[in-house]
C-alpha cells in the first residue's frame, strides 16, 4: 500500500471511532491521541480496525510507532 | 535432535530387550516369537541373545497361552504376551475380557494382573477380511484394561516400559504398516507417559484426531490442507483407554471443527465415542460445524489391493472431509 492508501485507511477506521475528527488538519508528526482525544480503548479499536483491513497483527510493543500518521504510514508500507 | 534413525520394528525389539535385561520377572511369549523370530520379525535374534526361558514359543492356541500369561502375572511375573494379530485375539477374548480385565475387581484387589499383551492390528497388506481388523476400539470399551496405540518411533520404544510398570493389564496395538516406518530416536528421551494424547501438529482451523496407523495419513492430509490455506491441528491419541479428552477438547475449543480418523468401521467405533464425548460436554458450544469422522468402509476388508485401499481411510478423504467443514460448498 502507498502513503495515500494508508492515510485513507486510517481515515476510514477513525471514522468509526472519532467521527468528528478532521484528519486533514492533523500533522504527520502530531500525536493523534492528544490531537483527537483518543483514549486507550479508541487506540486499541484503531489498531484492531487496521488489523482487520490489512491482516497485520501489531504487537503491543509496537504501539508507540503508531501514535503519529507518519509512524503508521511507515509501519504499514 | 541428532539421534539414531531406526525402524519402528527395531524400536519395539529394543524395548523388549531392555525390559527383559532389566527385570528378571519379564519374559515374552507367543506364536513364532522364538525360533522364527516373530511373524513381523520384531523378535528376530532375541531367542539367541536372551535364551529360551525369556523368549518362549507357544502352541497355536491363543486362549491357552494368553490365559497362561494372565496366570503368570497373577503369580508375580511380568509377562509380555504377543498375540500375532488382533484378529487372532478373538480366540482369547474370554481370557482378556473375562479374566484379565476383571480379576483385580472380582478378587477385591487380592490379585493384580500386571500382564502386557502386544498385538499387531490393521490392514494394508492384502491379508483380506479375516486378517485385517482394527478392533482396538472394541477393547477400549472394557473397564479394567489400558489400551495403547504407539504411532511413533519414540512411543514404540518407550511405551512398553511404562506398560510393564503398570500393575494392571495393558494392551499395546502395533499397526502392521508401521513396522517399516523409520524415524529418529531422541537420545534425551528415556521414558514416556501412557496417559496423555499429544498434539503432533499445531493448527487453528480444524482439529484432526487420530491414532496408530492412521496418524501418518492424517499428517499427510494436514500438509495437503496447508497448501489450501487451511491449518489443521493433528492430535495423536496415543492412549485409547482412558481417553485424554482434555487435550482434544482444548483443541476443538480453539479450532471449532473436528474430524476423527479411525481405521475401525464407524458403527460403534472409537470415533463415535470421541464424538459423543465432545458433543456431551462444553465443547459442544464451541463448535462452528458438525463433528465428522473418517473410518473404514462398512465392508469386510477386501483382498484386492485397489479395493483394500479404497476401503481404508486415506489422506485425500481426510483432507476432503476437513475441507468440507472449513469451506463448505
Amino acid at each position: 500500500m502507498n502513503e495515500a492508501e494508508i492515510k485513507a485507511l486510517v481515515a476510514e477506521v477513525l471514522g468509526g471511532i472519532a467521527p468528528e475528527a478532521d484528519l486533514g488538519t492533523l500533522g504527520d508528526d502530531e500525536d493523534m491521541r492528544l490531537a483527537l482525544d483518543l483514549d486507550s480503548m479508541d487506540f486499541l479499536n484503531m489498531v484492531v480496525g487496521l488489523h482487520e483491513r490489512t491482516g497485520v497483527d501489531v504487537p503491543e510493543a509496537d504501539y508507540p510507532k503508531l501514535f503519529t500518521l507518519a509512524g503508521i504510514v511507515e509501519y504499514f508500507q | 535432535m541428532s539421534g539414531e534413525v531406526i525402524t519402528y520394528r527395531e524400536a519395539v525389539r529394543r524395548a523388549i530387550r531392555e525390559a527383559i535385561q532389566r527385570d528378571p520377572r519379564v519374559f515374552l511369549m507367543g506364536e513364532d516369537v522364538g525360533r522364527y523370530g516373530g511373524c513381523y520379525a520384531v523378535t528376530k535374534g532375541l531367542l539367541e541373545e536372551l535364551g529360551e526361558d525369556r523368549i518362549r514359543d507357544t502352541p497355536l492356541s491363543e486362549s491357552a497361552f494368553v490365559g497362561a500369561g494372565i496366570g503368570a502375572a497373577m503369580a508375580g511375573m511380568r509377562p509380555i504376551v504377543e498375540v500375532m494379530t488382533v484378529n487372532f485375539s478373538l480366540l482369547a477374548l474370554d481370557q482378556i475380557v473375562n479374566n484379565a480385565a476383571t480379576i483385580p475387581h472380582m478378587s477385591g484387589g487380592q490379585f493384580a494382573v500386571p500382564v502386557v499383551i502386544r498385538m499387531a492390528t490393521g490392514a494394508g497388506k492384502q491379508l483380506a477380511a479375516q486378517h485385517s481388523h482394527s478392533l482396538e476400539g472394541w477393547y477400549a470399551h472394557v473397564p479394567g484394561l489400558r489400551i495403547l496405540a504407539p504411532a511413533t518411533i519414540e512411543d514404540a520404544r518407550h511405551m512398553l516400559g511404562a506398560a510393564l510398570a503398570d500393575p494392571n493389564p495393558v494392551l499395546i496395538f502395533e499397526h502392521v504398516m508401521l513396522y517399516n516406518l523409520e524415524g529418529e530416536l531422541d537420545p534425551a528421551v528415556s521414558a514416556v507417559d501412557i496417559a496423555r494424547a499429544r498434539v503432533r501438529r499445531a493448527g487453528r482451523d480444524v482439529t484432526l484426531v487420530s491414532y496408530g496407523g492412521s496418524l501418518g495419513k492424517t499428517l499427510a492430509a494436514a500438509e495437503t490442507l496447508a497448501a489450501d490455506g487451511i491449518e489443521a491441528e493433528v492430535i495423536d491419541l496415543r492412549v485409547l483407554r482412558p481417553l485424554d479428552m482434555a487435550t482434544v477438547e482444548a483443541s476443538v475449543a480453539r479450532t471449532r471443527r473436528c474430524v476423527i480418523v479411525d481405521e475401525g468401521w464407524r458403527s460403534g467405533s472409537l470415533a463415535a465415542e470421541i464424538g459423543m464425548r465432545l458433543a456431551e460436554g462444553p465443547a459442544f458450544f464451541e463448535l462452528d460445524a458438525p463433528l465428522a469422522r473418517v473410518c473404514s468402509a462398512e465392508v469386510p476388508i477386501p483382498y484386492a489391493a485397489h479395493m483394500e485401499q479404497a476401503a481404508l481411510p486415506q489422506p485425500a478423504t481426510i483432507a476432503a472431509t476437513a475441507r468440507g467443514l472449513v469451506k463448505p460448498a
Partner: protein
Amino acid sequence: MPSLGADMESAILVEWSVKPGDTLRRGDIIGVVETEKGAIEIEVFEDCVVEELVVAVGTEVKVDGVLARLRGTREAAAPATAPARPAVVPPPAAPPAAAPREPVPRAVPPLPSTRVRASPAARREAKARGIALDGLTGSGVYGAVCLADVARAAAAAPARKPRGGFDPAAMRRAIGNAMSRSKREIPHYYLTQSISLGAALAWLARENESRPVTERLLPAALLLKATALALARVPALNGFFTDGEFVAGKGIHIGWAVSLRGGGLIAPALHDADRLSLTALMAKLRDLVQRARTGGLRSSEMMDPTITVTSLGERSAEAVLPIIYPPQVAVIGFGSVNERPWVDAGRVAPQPVVVATLGADHRVSDGHRGGQLLAEIDHHLQHPEAL
C-alpha cells in the same frame, strides 16, 4: 415504558422493531425509544407474542405508560408470518478423483421447526452481540449460520447510522438532575486507596504478547474484574437503596462510565462481570463502549447496573471523588496511572500507582465495609493471573 435511569420521566418512541403476530424470545428487541441519554433499544422480559402496538411512532410516553400488548408464551408458537429462511446448501463436494472413496454423502434433513439452523458457536456469538439469526445467510455446513456469518453481520452493523444521537443539553440536564438528587439525599462517605499496579501491568504486557490484537486486554479490564470479584466478597456495596432499605443486587452488573464524544456521560451495565473471563470481559467492554457511543444500548443495560465504576483514563487527574448514581449505594473511581515512589520491603522504588476511591451511602455501609472492598480490589490487582 421502563424506567431507564434514576430521573427518567418519559421518553419518545422512535421505532418499532416488530409487528403484531411476531413471536419474541426473552431479550429480543421490540423497539427503540429516545431519552435524554440518547436512543435505547427496549428488550422484552419473557417469551411472548406481539398482540398490539398501542403507541404510534413519535409519541412521548411517561415511565410505566403502556407501549404495547404482549401475550406471554411458555415456548415459542409458530409465527403468523414465517421469516425468510436461508437457501439450503448442497452437501460438501466430492474429493479429487483418486482411488480413495468419497466422503459419505450427507443428505440435508428437512428442518423440523421454524428454528434457524446455526452452529452452537454462532448462536452464542449472535446472542452476545445482539444480532438476530433470522435473515442471516448461512455459509456453514448444511447451510447453517456459522461464526463467519455472524462476524460479517456484526461488521456490517456499525455502518448503520446511529439512530438519534443524543442532545448534549438534554443529557447535561439529566446528569444534573440525577447528581443533584444524589447529593441531596445520599450521605456520602469517601475512602481512598493507592494501589501499586506493577505486578498487574507487567502481567498484562506478557499476556498481550501472546494475544492477537483482537483479544488484547486493556488495564481497564483488570480494574473491572478486580472490582467485580471484590464486590462478590463484600455484597453490602452491590445493590440498591429503595423504600428506606438496602436490597442486594441479583448479580454483579457493573455500570461502566463511558464518556461520549461531544460531552456527555453514560454508565451502561456489564452483566455478571464477576463471572466473565478477562477475554470475554474485554470483548464485552469494547462492544459496550462502541454501542454507547453509536446509540445501540439496550434497556437492560440501562436498568441493571448494581454499582458504577468510573475510570479517568490516561491524561487526567490522580484521583476522582465520584457521586453515587441513585438508587445504587456505592460508586468506585480510578484515577490515572502514574509512576510514583513506592515502598516495598523497606526499599523505595518507582511503581505505576493508581488511586482507587470509594464513595458509599452511609445509610447502608460504613468505613469498615468500604475499607474491606478497597482492600479486596487491591489484593486482586496484586494477583493478576488469578483474575
